[in-house]
């Protein structure tokens, strides 16, 4: 178990404020947040590479807050892999072995097992400069895992990779986590990575943790406007609540349950908003007429902006559907969404 309480770090202008986190032993935990939120600083603080001003870090019942980095049993894998350029792949991987109390035979077994698992046997004699991104990442993981740390910190392990490698390494991370007893603590700014890899997550913003919990909960029930925006809820609207109705400007929107406050926000994911030309025969209780004010190309999808009275709702629609409906700027459309897709906070 990792317990971080009231952790404070000052790094020039940047500050980590009272970080509290609790991560189960052997979990796959994800820390998310936009660039500059302080994710890497938090990782380096846990690894002992950044001085801590206050608070405590306890790993497996041992207070490691003031320990030297080499005595913590915390491994780190950087986004740029940080392989030692002057050493071969094999010597990179075995770098940390001499500092562990392993017998040689066990260490040799550990090496061959990891090398097999990661499929890097053919690379052992090569230097890092000749490897591809995916290969570098595998070597970096092997180097960190061979010393059997309690926790491994992964700083955006997938973001520097090409799409093809990314999928491959993502599966590999899942597999490595399953086969080792190590706690994985991964930083990412990509929500889809969190959804596929982790069970629990924390969201960080401007040096503070703004929400922690199960990944699905964060995705479905963001605690604040920042998290909602971060997890891709594009329609975040200030609202007044009255029973199971929310007043947003002049619109009345049906919500799934009563809200504890009289005012707050409601959020609807753009993919949950359906556009049509005629009223739909469905259970969708919320349906409004509007006018298309913008269409943004997002690769496979269009993000369509629809002005409904005095607000703008955003909907994601496939390109095929957009052509079928003949969507164009200035066209009047119906905007519909289910009550259950409306999230309030």
């Amino acid at each position, binding site marked *: 178990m990792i317990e971080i309480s009231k952790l404070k770090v000052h790094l020039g202008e940047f500050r980590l404020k009272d970080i509290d986190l609790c991560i189960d032993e052997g979990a796959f935990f994800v820390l998310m947040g936009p660039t500059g939120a302080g994710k890497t600083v938090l990782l380096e603080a846990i*690894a002992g590479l950044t001085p801590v001003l206050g608070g405590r870090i306890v790993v497996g019942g041992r207070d490691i807050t003031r320990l030297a980095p*080499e005595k*913590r049993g915390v491994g*780190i894998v*950087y986004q740029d892999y*940080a392989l030692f350029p002057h050493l071969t792949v094999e010597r990179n991987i075995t770098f*940390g072995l001499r*500092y*562990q109390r392993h017998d040689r035979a066990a260490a040799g077994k550990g090496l061959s097992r990891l090398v097999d698992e990661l499929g890097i046997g053919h690379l052992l004699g090569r230097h890092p400069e000749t490897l591809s991104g995916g290969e570098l990442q595998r070597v970096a993981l092997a180097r960190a895992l061979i010393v059997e740390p309690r926790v491994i910190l992964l700083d955006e392990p997938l973001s520097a990779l090409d799409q093809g490698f990314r999928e491959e390494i993502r599966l590999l991370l899942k597999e490595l986590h399953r086969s080792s007893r190590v706690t994985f603590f991964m930083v990412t700014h990509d929500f889809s990575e969190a959804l596929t890899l982790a069970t629990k997550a924390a969201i960080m913003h401007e040096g503070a943790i703004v929400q922690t919990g199960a990944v699905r909960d964060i995705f479905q029930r963001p605690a604040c406007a920042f998290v909602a925006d971060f997890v891709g809820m594009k329609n975040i609207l200030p609202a007044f609540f009255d029973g199971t109705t929310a007043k947003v400007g002049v619109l009345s929107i049906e919500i799934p349950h009563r809200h504890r406050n009289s005012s707050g926000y409601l959020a609807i994911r753009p993919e949950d908003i359906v556009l049509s030309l005629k009223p739909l025969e469905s259970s969708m209780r919320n349906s409004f007429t509007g006018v298309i004010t913008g269409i943004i190309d997002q690769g496979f999808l269009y993000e369509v902006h629809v002005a409904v009275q005095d607000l703008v709702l955003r909907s994601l629609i496939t390109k095929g559907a957009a052509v079928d409906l003949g969507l164009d700027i200035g066209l009047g459309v119906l905007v519909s969404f289910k009550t259950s897709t409306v999230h309030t906070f």
Partner: protein
Amino acid sequence: MARREPFFWVSVSCGIVVLAFILLPLWEMLTAPSYAMLKETLHDKTVLHSIWLSIYTAFAAAAIAFVFGTPLAYVLARTHFRGKRLVEGIIDLPIVIPHPVVGIAILGVAGRNHWLGQVMSELGLRIMGSTTGIITVLTFVGMPFYINTLKSGIEAISPRLENVARSLGAPLWSTFARITFPLAWRSVLVGFIMCCARAISEFGAVVVVAYHPMIAPVLIYERYEAYGLKYSQPVAVWLVLVCLTLFLVLRALALPGKKAA
């Protein structure tokens, strides 16, 4: 072909003037002495001894800079502390102080009137007019070149490599020996060469502290004063040739496989 801008021609002309300015006097000096004179100078024990002394003391100075400067360069490259600018400024002082002043300053500490001079004299260390004195002066003037070169070399190495080494269990000392130093060794060598080059060229400070034993620049000056240009040139030629050869060899050692650094 596209027409060159006037600025291009201005740059080229300035470049030619600068190169000629550097090369012309050197070329004149190198070609002035006859072959017979050069050969005869080589049989002169005083000349050989002074060139050897120049090289030996310069290398000794660079070795001292290596031992004391390496840890300092590492600390300056990797840490931020209050007063770091001041420390860097102090290290640069020997570069800006006029050379004879350096000599006088060192004599001031090494003389019998200073406690340090008394301690040294009790230990049997003599600065005035000794090889020890020459090495002291050369270390003083050469040290900043070694430290500054190595400091920029270490700064160019990603601290993340050291972070990873630490997280794998390596203590600071081991991390330095296995990661930082092997990656910075070219900067170490270049810094060493810079320090040597600066030391070999020193004259003003050495002449104050130790006229004898005579290093090559002092001998060249003495011959020039006593016998004129013609007799000082062959010694100068030999000093330049020996130094150039040494530095070319060291440079060649430092350059290949640059991508690994």
